[in-house]
């Protein structure tokens, strides 16, 4: 026994390490592990409710519950955010192609600049909430803009995408989680 311990310890230590690596690789391959994702602790939990003034019409309010019963993408953005400009084109296309709700959270932004921004570049959102205080972004644990969340008809956070949303990312990360019957 002592011989096995004394002489073989580097061997066993290394085998253990290799097993961990193999497990990690298989996890990545199956999509269970994504080292690039900053995972949200919200996944699988109820999406935080919000009630904010609308950017498009300040007399109106935007609430998450208003779109209950449908799949929705909550997109955190700002007119100040350079990377958000990069995803804008993709959002417009996705909004046309997908029959789901897009709710923009205009994060720490001047609503008039935001309004001008969507007027100039096109509006991919069904509703835009004005989150000047950044409270909703905090509730959702946002690290930076843009970030997008896929919410189920029942209000459960299904997925999170960090960085500009692309059509490919939507197809790979969001689309497989949506059951076709429930989208309409």
């Amino acid at each position, binding site marked *: 026994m002592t011989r096995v311990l004394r*002489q073989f310890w*580097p061997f066993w230590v290394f085998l253990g390490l290799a097993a961990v690596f193999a497990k*990690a690789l298989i996890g*990545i391959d199956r999509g269970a592990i994504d*080292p*690039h994702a900053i995972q949200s602790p919200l996944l699988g939990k109820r999406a935080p409710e919000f009630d904010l003034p609308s950017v498009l019409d300040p007399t109106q309010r935007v609430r998450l519950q208003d779109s209950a019963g449908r799949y929705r993408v909550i997109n955190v953005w700002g007119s100040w955010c350079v990377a958000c400009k990069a995803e804008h084109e993709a959002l417009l296309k996705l909004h046309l192609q997908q029959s789901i709700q897009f709710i923009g959270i205009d994060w720490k932004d001047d609503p008039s600049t935001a309004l001008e921004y969507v007027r100039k570049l096109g509006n991919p959102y069904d509703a835009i909430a004005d989150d000047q205080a950044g409270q909703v972004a905090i509730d959702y644990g946002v690290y930076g803009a843009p970030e997008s969340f896929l919410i189920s008809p029942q209000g459960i956070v299904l997925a999170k995408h960090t960085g500009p949303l692309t059509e490919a990312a939507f197809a790979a990360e969001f689309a497989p989680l949506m059951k076709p019957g429930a989208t309409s």
Partner: protein
Amino acid sequence: MMPEWGTLALALAIVLSLSGAVLGLGPMPLPVELNLKLLRNCTLGVWWALAVAFALLVTALVTHDFSVAYVAKNSNTELPRLYCVAAAWGAHEGSLLLWALLLSLWSVLVARHSRSLPPTFRLKVLGVLALVQLGFLLFTLLTSSPFERNLVVPDEGADLNPILQDPALALHPPLLYMGYVGTAVAFAFAVAAMLTGHLDQAFARWVRPWTLASWLALTLGITLGSFWAYYELGWGGWWFWDPVENASFMPWLAATALIHSLAVTAQRGLFRQWTLLLSILTFSLSLLGTFLVRSGVLVSVHSFAADPTRGLFILGLLVFYIVGALLLYALKGQSLTQRGGFDATSRESFLLFNNALLVTTALLILLGTLWPLFLEVFQWGQISVGPPYFNVAFMIPMLPLVALASVGAHAAWKHGALWRRARGLAATAAIAMVLAVLLRSVYPSGGSWLTLCGFFAGCLILCSSLALWWWDLRASFGLRHAAVGMVVAHLGIGVFTIGVTGVSSFAIEKDVSLAPQESAVVADYRVTFIALQPVKGPNYDGLGGTFELRHANQWLATVESQKRVFHAGGAPMTHAAIFSRGGYDLFVALGEDLGAGKWSLRLQYKPLVRLIWWGGVLMALGGLWALVFRAKEVKA
């Protein structure tokens, strides 16, 4: 047709490596001498085949042959010639080919310069090298061939990653790979020693120059990489504890430990088991680095296209080589019995501490690098381990190491006999303390008690190394070459320590927003934003900001920082303006357009920062001296 010749050359290299491995490690029906001759020709053949393959890749890049997928992905017609060549190692597939090419170069060198070794031993060394070569060539050809064709030939290629378009890059990866791959030589010697039973002092003497050579390349590669990150990434940092940097630093620490333990084994025949294990560990860490970087299990700024299939392949290779070697070690390495003891203050004791501290540091860095992965695999949550951990994990073993090296270099083998120099060493320490206090007083603000510790450790090793020269000269036997190499390398450590201490204690960083004609002050230096003008490069456009630097109203320089947008797309790159004088650097980086004519700027004052790289250069020079002159001594 050219890429097909490249694939053919790769295939030929695979066949030759396989033959080499069989000749070296298989059963030996032929006489040893004939076997060896055949094996040497195989080694030479692999080198030529890979040289042809590499030349074909470079030709494809320079002639913009976009029918080759690698060329279309990593270069375009606007890319300057130098970077077309550098693109050959700018991405995963090409850099693997360079890896293989350099390994074949090492193998040829070993084949040529090992005539004094026993033929069977030499056979095994070259056989192990051929086996390592075989694995990596199979990996290249099967999962990552740079010669794959595009079905549709694009008119224009993408571009080489803009952050890689820099002259330092032309040298950094080849040097680093030279070092990485070089660790395979020590590994091959260790395995051959265990296979043939040549586990004596001679083994250590044979392998030492090779270890030194790969350590030298690794040192230069890391130093250059750090310098490149400093002026090219635009953040003004010189080390980020990024997984890829750690992947190069861990083998460096292990190789440094190995050089020192080899000294003990060569001189006294002690530490033999440990030296064997360390040879395996050094190569394992360099393979592990390759695995971590290429498989995508860790996130890094140096992104190679991550691919779990490639990851599994490299993991397979890693397991095959390392498990094989460790098994061999478990069965054969431990039969060694050691004779001869040593005193507590002998050089052996100090080198033992040196090894313990260096290997501890390497393992602590390994732990920090892998920790996020462990947590994720066992689903304990997600964390990232950052500089606060690494800085402490690095500093706690390193400060005592520097202090021990200052004393240990004076200790004699077996019986330390340090008392002979007790008074001299005490005087050295006193001088070092005075110097450290003086250095500390140059910077009136900032710093802590650690600053003084760092300066003291740096000055101590400088003074004690110089004192070694002084005593050697007085003792009339003059300077010994091995000692010269060691002293120069240790001076490098001292210079490096002072640089790190200075810049981490006294650097000042300021983010300001300025419009042209406005100015800001950073550490007594006034930075005035003069003007903004468009700039045009060969494959990028951008904006350049001119800045005037003044100290106490005295003009120092006018510098330009650029923001470059490459035609092939991607995020804009910052090209920082760096003004360097004597003991400090001033660093100006142009940031974002804030509107209304204002720009965000990052200003930094970095005292002593250059010493970090000069320290690295000195260490490498020391290694070079030991390598060149020791080789002469051994031959003579």
